């Protein structure tokens, strides 16, 4: 049982070590310049503006594409096909997609988008991220709709509300905070993803918002800069890593607070 306490302490110390290293290496590089200047060539000053903008665009697009599909699929599973065969198959497949290696998703989008289009592009990166968003949203939407009490559905049906309106006006409203949590978790997951971007959006040294051209993203820049031999690039990589980690952890803490509030009320 001493081992059990020790294991927990070691487990917690990993978190402390990683966060500590991030702050130690990345905090000093954090300045206004990081958010206002583009990625520099080695040896000169610069920031991460194009990478941050690229990441934001890709994430927003991925959520815009993935969320509606995910919510609709989750709605079918919880509201229409709760007991049918299709739902159990979709649930199983969705769970597989949820933990499928993200690099495989990247290869998939390379095959269906990058190769036919003939070049890497921001939109391909966003679609690859959307494929990662979908299973997260499907899962939470289904779970949250299943938590909505049936008496609410019966009450809606008894005043003659059609089923689609009942779902939109009653069930969605009751499950809202849970579904938003799912979306936040999906954003957190997607914003740190690197592997699927490497051969879809690729990377771009310059500021670009053209969706039809290669686009920079924070994770891809970190990958490139961290593995480079240049000290100032490595420094920027650490700063980028700190920015991503802080935003991801903030998102998951907000998501947790939302579900926590719902549980206690």
């Amino acid at each position, binding site marked *: 049982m001493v081992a059990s306490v020790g294991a927990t302490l070691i487990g917690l110390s990993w978190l402390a070590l990683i966060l500590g290293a991030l702050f130690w290496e990345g905090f000093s590089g954090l300045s206004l310049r990081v958010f206002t200047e583009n990625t520099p060539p080695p040896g000169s000053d610069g920031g991460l503006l194009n990478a941050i903008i690229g990441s934001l665009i890709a994430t927003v697009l991925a959520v815009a594409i993935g969320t509606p599909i995910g919510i609709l699929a989750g709605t079918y599973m919880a509201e229409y096909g709760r007991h049918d065969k299709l739902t159990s198959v979709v649930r199983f497949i969705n769970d*597989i997609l949820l933990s499928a290696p*993200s690099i*495989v998703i990247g290869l998939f989008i390379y095959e269906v988008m990058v190769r036919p289009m003939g070049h890497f592009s921001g939109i391909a990166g966003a679609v690859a991220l959307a494929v990662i968003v979908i299973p997260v949203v499907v899962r939470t939407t289904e779970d949250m709709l299943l938590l909505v009490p049936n008496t609410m559905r019966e009450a809606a049906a008894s005043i003659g509300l059609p089923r689609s*309106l009942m779902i939109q006006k009653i069930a969605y409203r009751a499950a809202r905070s849970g579904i938003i949590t799912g979306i936040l978790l999906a954003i957190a997951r997607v914003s740190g993803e690197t592997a699927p971007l490497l051969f879809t959006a690729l990377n771009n040294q310059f500021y670009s918002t053209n969706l039809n051209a290669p686009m920079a993203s924070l994770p891809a820049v970190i*990958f490139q800069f*961290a593995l480079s031999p240049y000290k100032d690039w490595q420094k920027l990589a650490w700063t980028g890593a700190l920015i991503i980690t802080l935003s991801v952890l903030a998102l998951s803490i907000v998501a947790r607070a939302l579900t926590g509030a719902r549980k206690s009320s």
Partner: protein
Amino acid sequence: MSAHAVMTRERRDEEAPVVEVAWEGQVVGARQDVEERAKALDRLRLSDNIFKLMTRSAAIFVLALLGGVMLALFLGSLPALNEFGLDFFLSQSWNPVTEKFGALAPIYGTLVTSLIAMMIAVPFGLLIAMFLTELCPMWLRRPIGIAIELLAGIPSIIYGIWGLFVLAPFLQQHVQPGVIATFANVPGLSALFAGPPYGIGIFTAGLILAIMVLPFVTSISRDVFEAVPPVLKEAAYGLGCSTWEVMRYVVLPYTRVGVIGGVMLGLGRALGETMAVTFVIGNAHKISSSLLAPGTTISATIANEFTEAVGDLYTSSLIALGLILFFITFVVLAIARYLLLRIERRIG
């Protein structure tokens, strides 16, 4: 009586026209009303059906997505599989110049790094789960649980950069020389821990993977531990068992299926993990007997070489690697889901 009759008749006479007018108006209004209602109902029925169709299509789309992934990878890897046949799985050579590609080294690296990860993460995960369900004071459970789960939220690339700049140099300077010296004269182990201390390599990758899958093993083990009926534990405690004995002889056997499911889920993650491994594995396309030597994994090879791959055969070989990875993780995750579903049914 007659007065009453007169009065009612009079009243009826007075009211009659009014009633008639109102009644006729109602007939007109009602007809319009019925038609409008029918129209409104049609509209609702239509939107109802459209909504249902949309949700159903989205559900089917999720299925198609997985089918699409499989199909795209399969078609993409056909040139390589046609060219090399079964040899692709058995050959260790990876030579872009002569265009000879074999997947054995990456497959080996993937399996060995994942194995190391599970050998470290499973005991740690189980012990932490025990701590959280049996020993930890109530007020500490939630914060510690959240802290462990935050480990799962940290992006893979952060583990990579930390592993490369912090963990690997530490292992190289302070741990590996000692390990190599200690096992140098032990038969068997001397081959496993041989060679110069690079810092990066198969073992470092396995260690980082262990930290990354720890939260999955912990949170699922904790969930299934918490689902053990309290009477079972109380009975064992009543017989005078220690906490350890209760865990070992009551909780673990009862939750075996769920724990294995959680372990498999963690294994699925470890097999497919890309960025963290890419940073610290060393990218050497060879199988070496030492765990401290650099190696490669399927996902690291793809991440490193895909954008530099020239020629269809090179690209296709990398996609074939992706197909193998997808197949392995699919099987592992499917087994994990099946086991977890079984325990869910038993609990529910």
